[in-house]
């Protein structure tokens, strides 16, 4: 930040400054300065590229393959997959009919992989069986097994990872799709021919916006 005091210039000096012709030397200085600025900008960009983290494949960030018998039974609590940082939930009718579920979000039967990180500020929310909901210990955001937010300062539903149900030959039978404007991944109904699920923790579908008290838009 340059010194804030301005020097008073006499009108004659001002006149003299503006009528000085641009010499080659002066021009070259300006050109050099501009090129230094461009170089610094480039260095800045290269530094950011240098410092960005590299994601490891096969660990969190990569694809997890589960046999279909690892899917929890319908309507039981969520299954914990800490290495993948997700909860696997299998939602049947009782869960979908939960009176706390906000109406505006499309819910269907099937399996979802809920990202364990609360969408508010990054803490890991917990499953509280006595209250039949997820609760975040940091600021109190609460979510149902469908992933819908029902309380707290979070501003959207839980993010989900993309699940692909795969048959014995490796064909993808069905997968998670965004259901609301590129967000709110659907639950995946597991077809009988499916033998495994592929859960891609590198691709996440964000939850739909949810800010109303009690859940909703």
């Amino acid at each position: 930040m340059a010194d804030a005091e301005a020097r008073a210039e006499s009108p004659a000096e001002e006149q003299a400054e503006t009528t000085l012709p641009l010499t080659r030397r002066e021009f070259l200085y300006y050109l050099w300065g501009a090129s230094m600025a461009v170089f610094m900008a480039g260095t800045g960009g290269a530094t950011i590229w240098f410092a960005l983290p590299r994601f490891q494949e096969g660990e969190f960030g990569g694809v997890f393959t589960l046999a279909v018998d690892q899917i929890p039974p319908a309507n039981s609590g969520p299954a914990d997959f800490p290495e993948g940082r997700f909860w696997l939930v299998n939602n049947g009718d009782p869960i979908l009919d939960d009176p706390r579920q906000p109406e505006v979000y499309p819910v269907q039967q099937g399996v979802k992989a809920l990202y364990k990180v609360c969408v508010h500020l990054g803490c890991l929310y917990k499953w509280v069986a006595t209250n039949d909901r997820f609760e975040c210990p940091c600021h109190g955001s609460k979510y149902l097994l469908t992933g819908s937010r029902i309380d707290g300062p979070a501003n959207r539903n839980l993010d989900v990872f993309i699940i692909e149900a795969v048959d014995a030959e490796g064909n993808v039978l069905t997968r998670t799709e965004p259901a609301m404007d590129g967000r709110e991944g659907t639950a995946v109904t597991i077809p009988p021919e499916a033998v495994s699920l592929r859960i891609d923790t590198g691709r996440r579908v964000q939850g739909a916006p949810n800010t109303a008290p009690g859940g909703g838009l």
Partner: protein
Amino acid sequence: MDFIRGIFEPHIPILDDIKEKGVRQTIEDTANDSVRRVTAGLDIPALRGMLRGDEPGRPNPRLTPHADGFWLHMRPGFYNNLVTGLYPSFRLGWLSTFFLTFEIITGVYLMFWYTPSPLVAYQNMVDILSTVPFGRLMRDMHRLGAEVMVAVVALHMLRTLVTGSYKKPRQFTWATGALLLWVTLVLSFSGYLLPWDQLSLWAVTIGASMAEAFPPEVVGQTLNLLVRGGPDIGANGLLRFYLLHVIGLPLAALVLFGVHYYKVVIHGHSLAPEDENIGEDTAKKVPLDKREYFLPTIATRELFYVAGLTLLLIVTSAWFYHAPLEPHADPQVTPLHTTAPWYFLWLQGMLKLGDKVIWGVIVPGAITTISVVFPYFELGPNRRYAARRIGLSGAAVSVFVLAVLSFMGTPWYAVQSSADQEVLAELLPQTHPGPLLNSDWDEFETGTYEAANWQAAPTPALRNILHEFNESLQRHGDTLPNAEGIMVVENWQSGLRKVTLRVLWDSIETGEQTESSQSTYFHQDSAHEVTTRFGG
């Protein structure tokens, strides 16, 4: 030929002096000369004269070290005696600098034994506390110094605001000072992560999420990834925070401090508002009769303050203040009631008001920007308190609002998880040992105890805990109807007891009795109170 003679007959200048003046005089002159060079201007008689308290000659040789020397170059040769008294609020700038230096020194000591890797960081902390002589003292002093420094810098800012010392021509001094406050806060915050315990990891994870909230989305995501070096705070994140803490921010602090202090000196320390005429900045021109010279007067005082403060910090850290060490960081489990460090409680309070983009980034950003540039929009040169009623009221209101927001940032306010978890967390908190583990082990006799029957418990420690348990259940009475609390203490292993707390209540929805319980293991030698903040 002369050249060959030169090898065999070397010319030693000092022999010339001895031949001319005699040995004794030569030694005296050489000594004087050396001392004058080392002190940059004071030979032995001048030095002794200063130490004896004699009147200096004219021109005053005690100003030469300032003019010619490196170390005293930026320090003023003399102060206005109106600003040298030890008022409660003057000298806070000096105190801030003292703490910066203190932190650098204690920090370097700690660097001998610390490696910023999640695999060893926690064990390093344990080693510092258990196998390094004076390790705990160094760590406690470093932590104490950090917390006091934040308070001192904030108070210094408040003092400058109240006395209107930010007005022209000192606006940029104020601006660099406001930035220095932020550097101090981030220094403290980045250091918070380094012990790699549960509170460190999660408090910093939440704080770093603020980076992600930066609009627009691409900028926020990139900033977040740069700060963490990964999807969550792990090895890369710890290293980056360490680099920030140890070199990045100290460099920024030194640069900003250099500019800040230089401007303080060339404009002169601003006098109290009533000591100068309105609109006149007379601080720079100190009349002869008001001068108090740095050498020896101010220097002596500063050395004394350093000695006194160091003693105070050592004594406090040795017996009254201890930096806590929570359980090892667990990236899979977020503990209940993670709180920000006290100087960020206001931010945590703001976040409870709503959307994190607005309350976590935009509003604090606006507050910071305004606080940095407002001196440039000031209305007039009058620093007298009477003329600044609106401004001073504004300052008072801001302080009050900060206090309220800070209270809102504590776990007391808002965020409640289910009542049974709250009750259990009061006795067995997830971020620090809590009242149960701080009790006397020998008094925790085996048996089954009911909270309602606390008076019948055999020992004082049991009575205390059961009493707290009971109070807690009653406080949550409306969400836990018919609540009962039971505590079971069993012998588990040699020196180890298992304590189970059970909360039973009638569920509001179904009317059936529900139970929630939590157990912990309590060892005779665990001495948890040693690593709580104000333990022994």
